[in-house]
C-alpha cells in the first residue's frame, strides 16, 4: 500500500510544475503500477493452502533470510478467528484455541503451553507473521486436525484433503493416456513441442509413487510430476501432438495422441478451465462425453506407517522407515489403481498421524481392505501380519469395542493375507504370515493387514531398489485382486 501512496503523492506534486505536462503524468502512476504488479507476479513467492472446504494461496515474504506468511490469513477461511495486538503481543483466537505471540521472540504460548517457532515471530502493521517451517507444528496445535506441509514447494494440506491420481496408457487408436483423479481437477493446460503441461494451481494433487511414470511407449514415453511455489505440475512427454479432454465430472483427463482421424472426431471448442491458451494450435483441448467407467465397489485404504516426528526404524544412518513406507505405499497405490481398485492414502507427505487417527480415518472411509506398510532392516523378504486381538473389549449393543473392532473382520484379513502370500511365493519372494499386536489393525472395521518389507538379501540399501519395491507392491496388488471377489462377498 505504501507504493500506492507514493505514486499518488508524485501525481499531486507534479501539478504545480505546469499544466502542459499533466496529461502525460496522469498515466504515469498506472503505468508504474502495472510494471510493479507485472514484475511482482513473475517472482512472487506463494504458499498454497488446501483445506476441506476451500483452497487458496497467500504471498510469502522474506525476512532475515527466512520465509514468513501471515498466520491470520491462513486460518481465517477455516473457522471463527479473531486477532488483536497488545503492545508487542499479538493474540490470535481460533475457535477455542488461544495463541499468544511476541514480536521478536521465538517462544509463543498456545493454549497456555510453550511453543517454539523456528525463527522469531514478526509483527508488521498489526499483521502477525510466522516462519513457514513452523507451520506444520503450529497449525496442528491450533487447528487440531492433521496437517501436512511440503516446505520446499510451499504446499500446506489441512486435513486429509490430498487428491491422488493414477495414469494408465491404453494402447488403442489413437493412443490414450487416461489419468484418474480422486477429486475433480481443473488444471491450466498448455502444450509445447514434445510435451503437454498441466499446472494445478488450486488442487491438492500429491505425487505418485515415482515422480516419473514410464509407459514403455515411443509416442507417450513418460509423464513427470513436480511441484514448486505452491503449484503442482504434470508434464506428459510425447513425440506427437497431444489433445487433452475432461470427463467423469472432472475426475478423468484423457490425453490422446493427435492424428488426423482423432482431430476430426473431437470438436474443436476451447476448454473452459484452460486460461493458458494452447501454444500449439494443433493441440485441441475439448470436453468429451463422460466415459463409461466401470463402477468401482472395491476400495482400499493404504497407510504409510509412521511419519512426522515418529520416524519408525532407523534402517540405516540416512534411511528412515517412514520414508520407505511412503515410497512403497505410493507405488502400491499406482499398482492397485491400474488394476481398477480405488485407493485412499492416509499419509502422502511427511505428516504425523496417531494410531487412533489412522483407524478413525480408515473406518470413516469404509474400505473393503486396509493395508499398513512397514519396513525392516532385519530378515529377508516380506512379513504379513493380521491383528492379534487384545483381551477384553466387549461389545455393547450396536457399539463395537474399539480395541477389538477387528474381530468380525479377522477371517477376511486372514483371507487377504493368504492371497498376498500366495502371490509373493509365486514370485519367489520370501514371505511369512503372522498375527501381531500391531495397532491400528485391531481397531479397523474392514479386512486389515500390515505388510513389513525387509530387504531381499542382507544389504539394507537394497530395500530402496525401485525394482525390488515394484516387484513387492505388484505382488501385493495381484494378491489383493486374486481375493477381491471373496473379500467383497465377505463384506
Amino acid at each position, binding site marked *: 500500500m505504501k507504493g500506492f501512496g507514493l505514486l499518488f503523492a508524485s501525481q499531486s506534486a507534479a501539478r504545480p510544475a505546469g499544466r502542459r505536462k499533466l496529461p502525460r503524468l496522469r498515466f504515469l502512476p498506472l503505468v508504474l503500477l502495472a510494471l510493479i504488479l507485472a514484475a511482482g507476479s513473475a517472482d512472487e513467492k506463494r504458499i498454497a493452502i488446501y483445506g476441506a472446504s476451500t483452497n487458496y494461496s497467500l504471498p510469502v515474504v522474506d525476512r532475515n533470510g527466512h520465509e514468513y506468511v501471515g498466520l491470520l490469513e491462513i486460518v481465517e477461511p477455516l473457522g471463527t478467528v479473531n486477532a488483536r495486538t497488545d503492545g508487542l503481543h499479538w493474540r490470535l483466537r481460533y475457535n477455542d484455541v488461544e495463541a499468544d505471540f511476541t514480536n521478536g521472540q521465538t517462544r509463543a504460548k498456545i493454549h497456555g503451553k510453550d511453543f517454539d517457532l523456528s525463527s522469531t515471530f514478526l509483527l508488521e502493521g498489526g499483521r502477525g507473521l510466522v516462519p513457514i517451517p513452523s507451520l506444520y507444528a503450529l497449525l496442528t496445535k491450533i487447528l487440531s486436525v492433521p496437517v501436512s506441509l511440503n516446505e520446499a514447494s510451499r504446499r500446506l494440506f489441512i486435513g486429509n484433503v490430498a487428491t491422488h491420481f493414477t495414469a494408465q496408457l491404453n494402447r488403442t487408436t489413437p493412443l490414450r493416456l487416461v489419468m484418474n483423479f480422486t477429486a475433480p481437477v481443473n488444471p491450466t493446460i498448455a502444450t509445447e513441442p514434445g510435451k503437454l503441461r498441466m499446472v494445478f494451481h488450486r488442487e491438492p494433487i500429491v505425487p505418485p509413487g515415482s515422480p516419473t511414470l514410464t509407459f514403455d511407449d515411443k509416442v507417450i514415453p513418460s509423464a513427470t510430476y513436480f511441484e514448486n511455489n505452491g503449484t503442482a505440475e504434470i508434464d506428459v512427454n510425447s513425440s506427437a501432438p497431444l489433445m487433452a479432454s475432461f470427463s467423469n465430472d472432472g475426475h478423468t483427463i484423457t490425453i490422446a495422441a493427435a492424428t488426423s482421424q482423432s482431430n476430426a472426431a473431437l470438436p474443436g471448442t476451447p476448454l473452459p478451465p484452460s486460461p493458458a491458451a494452447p501454444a500449439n494450435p494443433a493441440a485441441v483441448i475439448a470436453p468429451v462425453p463422460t466415459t463409461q467407467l466401470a463402477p468401482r465397489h472395491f476400495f482400499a485404504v493404504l497407510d504409510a506407517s509412521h511419519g512426522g516426528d515418529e520416524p519408525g*526404524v532407523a534402517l540405516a544412518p540416512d534411511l528412515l522407515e517412514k520414508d520407505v513406507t511412503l515410497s512403497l505405499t505410493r507405488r502400491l497405490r499406482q499398482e492397485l489403481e491400474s488394476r481398477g481398485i480405488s485407493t485412499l492414502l492416509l499419509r502422502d507427505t511427511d505428516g504425523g498421524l496417531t494410531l487412533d487417527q489412522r483407524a478413525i480415518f480408515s473406518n470413516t472411509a469404509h474400505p473393503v481392505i486396509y493395508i499398513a506398510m512397514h519396513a525392516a532392516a532385519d530378515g529377508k523378504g516380506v512379513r504379513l501380519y493380521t491383528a492379534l486381538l487384545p483381551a477384553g473389549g466387549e461389545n455393547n449393543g450396536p457399539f463395537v469395542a474399539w480395541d477389538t473392532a477387528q474381530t468380525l473382520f479377522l477371517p477376511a484379513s486372514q483371507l487377504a493375507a493368504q492371497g498376498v502370500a500366495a502371490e509373493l511365493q509365486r514370485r519367489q519372494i520370501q514371505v511369512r504370515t503372522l498375527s501381531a499386536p500391531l495397532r491400528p489393525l485391531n481397531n479397523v472395521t474392514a479386512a486389515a493387514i500390515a505388510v513389513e518389507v525387509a530387504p531381499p538379501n542382507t544389504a539394507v540399501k537394497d530395500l530402496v531398489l525401485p525394482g525390488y519395491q515394484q516387484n513387492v507392491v505388484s505382488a501385493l496388488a495381484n494378491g489383493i485382486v486374486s481375493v477381491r471377489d471373496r473379500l467383497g462377498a465377505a463384506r
Partner: protein
Amino acid sequence: MIPRHLIFAGGVMLLAVFSLGIYAGRMRGRVTQAETRSDSRPVAPPASGPTEPVTLYVAYDEPGTLRVQRSAIALPSARQQRAEEVLRALLEIYLSKNSPHPLARGADLRAVYLVTPGIAVIDVNAAFANGHRSGVLEEELTVASMIQTLNANIPDILRVKILVEGRERETLAGHADLSDFYDAAAVSQLAGQLQ
C-alpha cells in the same frame, strides 16, 4: 608433667586413627558405587536352594522364532516372586554375551504383579523399552517370549499387561502395542506361529 616420649606416642596413635578413618570411609564409598552399578543389571535367580525345572520361550532374531528351552533354577515359594524369577532367568539370556535376541544394556524387570482373577502385570524399566530395537518382529518376539514364558510356568494367567516404569505406554519401540491387555490364550497361539 607428661614425658615427651608419651606425648609423641599419643600423637602417632591419633594420626594412625585419623588415617584409618579416612581409608575406611573411602573403602565404604567404593562399595556403595559398586552396588549402584550392579543395580542396572538383572538380578540372577538365587544360586542356592533346591532348583526346579522351568520352561523358557527364548526369542531368536535369526530366523525370527521362539524356541523352547528347559532350565532349572532356584525358585521361591511365593507365586509372584516365582514369576519374577522366571522372567529374570529369561532376561539373563537376552543380556548375555552371545544373546540370540539382544536387549539394551541396563534392561531389567522391575516387578511382576499377579492380580486376581488371572491378571499379570509385568513392569519393566525405562532402559528396557527406550533401548529396545524397533521393528514389528523384534518387538513381537520380546513380548511373546515374556508372556508365553509366564504362561508356561505360572498357571491360571488369562490376561497380561506390560508397563514401563509403572506407567502405560503406547508401544514398546514404535510397533508392539502396550496399551491393551494381552490375551494369554491368543499369545499362546502366536507362540505356536513363531516356533
